């Protein structure tokens, strides 16, 4: 088993997806991208190596529940390193165009950068403030003003 295979199992445990639209991160081929994302943070690659080294060789043969329990134990033992790995995994997953397509399908999200198109919103309706205005001033006058 290669290191990337092990990383894929780690990713599938962190982000297992579901049986409908969400793919599991490892099966979706995000191992290398996760490495790239880990490199963005100071100490990120070292953290990834720390977590990978902590994974038992039997992990691929374990059930999903056991894999998850194993990772929780590593998280407790190496919280800083594990935190960086989760950050990298989420970065890889949520910048993947296919994952963004899933989000678009589920929520109506516009799978595009915020700019240059932005979003349309209706202008502010001042009548919403009628009751606030009716209640009158609440600021505190100062004697020497």
């Amino acid at each position, binding site marked *: 088993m290669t290191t990337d295979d092990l990383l894929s199992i780690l990713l599938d*445990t*962190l*982000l*297992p*997806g*579901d049986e409908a639209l*969400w793919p599991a991160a490892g099966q979706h081929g995000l191992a290398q991208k996760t490495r790239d*994302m880990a490199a*963005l*943070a*100071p100490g990120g690659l070292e953290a990834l190596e720390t977590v990978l080294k902590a994974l038992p060789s039997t992990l691929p043969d374990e059930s*999903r529940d056991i894999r*998850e329990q194993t*990772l929780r134990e590593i998280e407790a033992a190496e919280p800083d390193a594990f935190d960086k790995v*989760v*950050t990298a*995994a*989420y*970065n890889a*997953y*949520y*910048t993947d*165009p296919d*994952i*963004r397509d899933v*989000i678009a399908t*589920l*929520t*109506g*999200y516009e799978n*595009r*950068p*915020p*700019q*240059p*198109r*932005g*979003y*349309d*919103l*209706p*202008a*502010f*309706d*001042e009548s*919403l*403030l009628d*009751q*606030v*205005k009716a*209640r*009158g*001033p*609440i*600021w*505190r*006058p*100062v004697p*020497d*003003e």
Partner: protein
Amino acid sequence: MNGTADIVIVGGGAGGLAFAWAVAGPEVKVVLLERGEAVDQRRSPSLEPDWELALQTTFNANPNLRAGSSDHPVDDRDTPIKPAYYNALGGSTIRWGAHFPRFRPSDFRTRSLDGVGQDWPLSYGELEPWYDINDRMMGVAGLAGDPANPPRAPRPCPPLPLCPATEQLAEGFEKLGWHWWPSDAAILTEGRDGRAACNNCGPCGLGCPRHARASADIAYADAARAKGVDVRTRTTVTGIDFNSDGTRVQALTYLDSDGKVGRLNCENVIIAGNGLGTARLLLAEPRYRHELLGRGLMLHPTAIVTGFFRKQYKSYRGAFAASLISQEFYETDTPRGFKRGFQMQALRGQGPLTTAQGGYGTRLPWGGDHTTAFEESFGRTISLTVTCDDLPEDENRIEIDPARKDRWDMPVPKMIYRLGENTKAMRRFGIERASEALSAAGAWKIAVTKLSRTAGFHLMGTARMGRDDRASLVDRDGRVHGIENLTLADSSVFASAAAVNPTPTLQAIALRAAHAMRIRLGLSGVAAR
């Protein structure tokens, strides 16, 4: 390399650029030195597919994590609230949300009114005309008539829109009979001067390619250059040379963009490096000493309360930090168990990645529950900050570590801060009220971040203003007591923190200080030109 100038300004952020524009004129040679680079916001990461990653890297608010070419380290081990500022022309307004509230009159009189903190030697009324000038320069959207504040001039632009989620939140405030009002924001809702109107994209903190969101560079840098100011970026001031008795600054030393040492002889020096940078520069200078220098650091401890809604609101649409505020609990009401008060400010939802990483709160869980948690959160949340007034306490401070130097050979600053008991009581009360408001708006779940550890944006009060030269460092014009030609023009001079963002107030102070300097120099005043 040696040079001379009549007026040298250290720091090209919100205060420094405002001061530069206001003090400039054909009669004076003005030089502004900024350690950071100019940022081309027309090429904002918000135009790129991976835009959210920039919030963790090049636009990370924490200089220790961003670690850019202009950033120096900050020792933040002794503060639960980590530093958040940006080194560039425009300063932290490159990275901000452009929420633009003013202090209230009572914020300038906390000692007289409530027996806490310090009174300012200035009043709201004295600053009001400078607030107004600054609003026009920055380009402010909002709505006059807020009953939680004194009457003010019509806003230059109409308010930013609410969105379906913030309208729902407004309904919650209405049910409770509590104050709310659309935010004043330094964001244009109508185009002008080459700047387009806001198109509600959301992540203002990545810079605005439309220049709708103001930053100090957009609002003031070109205007200052047009009046003759020599703006030098990537120029880091490393020392202040005093005369023999320490009563006058003679020159500044600096490293230029090529790393060469320079010396600038000057008649007047203005430091505008925020509550951390200004204190560091002065603490590093052995010829200047004041027992309060660096002390009284105020940070606006902030809790964030997030409401989850069943409806998919697409709550990431719209300026993330500028929709509506509530100042229902702003003033002192002693039975609450604390002095002064807090503001609640709505924060919109965030993009997919930032939502997963926890946004304003806790990262979504990994494992089998992850997708459910994401679907419950994305586009379905609105948050309220509980932005607490912060009393100036001497033990909260900036120090320097003479043994640890950065790559400019400057001592590394250290933030030392802990929450006071008044703040803790205020925060508890505020979290309860914010939760109440979100529940009234229909939230089915509430999540509380008791203290936003990333929210060290507002670095105030380390060189406070006052009348007594033993109890303060600068006078009402920002002039350092006992040094005839040194002025501070940033949030370091704040005598109180208020419960709102400091930028409009620090810019108003800078404009007023520049006006006072012009009058002292026998020149026409700012407002008269």
